[in-house]
């Protein structure tokens, strides 16, 4: 794991003090990569999820899908070799792996909506204890809305992983009893990867499977302002 441990944070106003460490973004991405079975078809959302690709050894045969019509997406090109006709869903230049293919948006979203993707990994503003996801609209009524393929991915992929920091910059938990931001889809999330823990969404609520060294389930509950269950394995950041 590429983890470079970072110091925990202190938010005096909210009284949340971490004694533990947390995973950096690279380590978070690497942790998700470990859970992707060899040979899976996977869509990685814009932002941090895109970086999971860096942790997927090509020998594992994981095939990356991009909703703008690509299967077998490869890494960014060498500098100077960008092709404006070959971009990912984040509109960044990428390459095509051998054996990749191009297709139109109708077929691309058939793959998504039709349940052909084994896994998609999305970012989140909020995830509820029921697995509801809010990741497209920050709630401000005057905001310019934009949804892209998030709603299709959330309902379509066989398993939906969320990869996100545990707390917002303002120190609020992204794990919530009920989403206050507009939903992307209800009950769609299977697993949540944060900088502090790996958490499953189960019919009995959120169950913590792994927790970063130095944290206790109690502390995690406190900063999450939620009752989290589980008997988590303690893992290195």
């Amino acid at each position: 794991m590429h983890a470079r441990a970072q110091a925990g944070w202190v938010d005096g106003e909210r009284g949340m003090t971490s004694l533990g460490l947390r995973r950096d973004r690279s380590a978070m991405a690497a942790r998700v990569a470990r859970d992707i079975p060899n040979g899976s078809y996977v869509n990685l959302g814009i932002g941090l999820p895109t970086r999971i690709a860096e942790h997927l050894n090509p020998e594992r045969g994981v095939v990356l899908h991009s909703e703008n019509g690509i299967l077998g997406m490869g890494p960014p090109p060498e500098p100077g070799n960008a092709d404006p006709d070959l971009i990912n869903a984040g509109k960044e230049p990428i390459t095509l792996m051998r054996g990749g293919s191009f297709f139109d948006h109708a077929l691309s979203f058939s793959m998504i909506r039709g349940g052909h993707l084994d896994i998609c990994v999305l970012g989140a503003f909020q995830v509820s204890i029921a697995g509801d996801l809010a990741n497209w609209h920050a709630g401000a009524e005057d905001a310019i809305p934009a949804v892209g393929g998030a709603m299709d991915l959330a309902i379509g992929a066989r398993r939906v992983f969320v990869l996100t920091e545990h707390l917002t910059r303002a120190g609020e938990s992204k794990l919530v009893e009920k989403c206050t931001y507009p939903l992307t889809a209800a009950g769609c999330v299977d697993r949540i990867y944060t900088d502090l823990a790996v958490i499953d969404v189960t019919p009995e609520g959120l169950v913590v499977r792994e927790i970063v060294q130095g944290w206790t389930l109690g502390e995690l509950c406190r900063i999450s302002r939620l009752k989290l269950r589980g008997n988590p394995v303690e893992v290195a950041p």
Partner: protein
Amino acid sequence: MSSKVVADVEAAVGGIESGSTILIGGFGSAGLPSELIDALIANGASDLTIVSNNAGNGEQGIAALLQARRVRKILCSFPRQSDSFVFDALYRAGEIELELVPQGTLAERIRAAGAGIGAFYTQTGFGTRLAQGKESRIIDGKGHLLEHPIHADFALIRAELADPLGNLTYRKSARNFGPVMATAARCTIAQVSRVVGIGELDPEAIVTPGIFVRRVVCTRGRRQAGWTESAA
């Protein structure tokens, strides 16, 4: 046999009248028919309804069309981008109507128009604020929304090769919305990088058969758009 290839972009956009609904291909700048959009601006049609994945960026392409105040309404999945300031300003000023459509639903609604499907049910958007005003239905225990086709008067798309019959191939991820949009308009207009002779395109590799294409124009110079956009 008459050819579908027209002389220039002005001829290509001829007859596009004010009040038209126009599908515009592209995802970001890949597949965006920039020269056709410029010609549409010069053509002068206004009060347009535009259907495209994005609402323009910078001051080019769809953003330029918006800035020229030709667009009454836009249907798209991702209007907000780091440099979508033209759309943003019009939207905040209440000077453009927005119908936000999830990307897959946008593609499928356009396909439905082209395929003669009256309406369809999808799980996408069920239980969200984009479901407002839409009929819903539980199918196999899962909530679905009823979505309607998006028919258009014109489609402006960019392809790679064309022949005089209007058969098209595309290039890499510039294919995106082109093939579905080509099916859904009364008049589909394709700008292409090169026109080849009849019989030069492999019948197995033609992506858009000529039945869906009315006019073809060759625009060799391809814009090299920057990589500044940041989101889908």
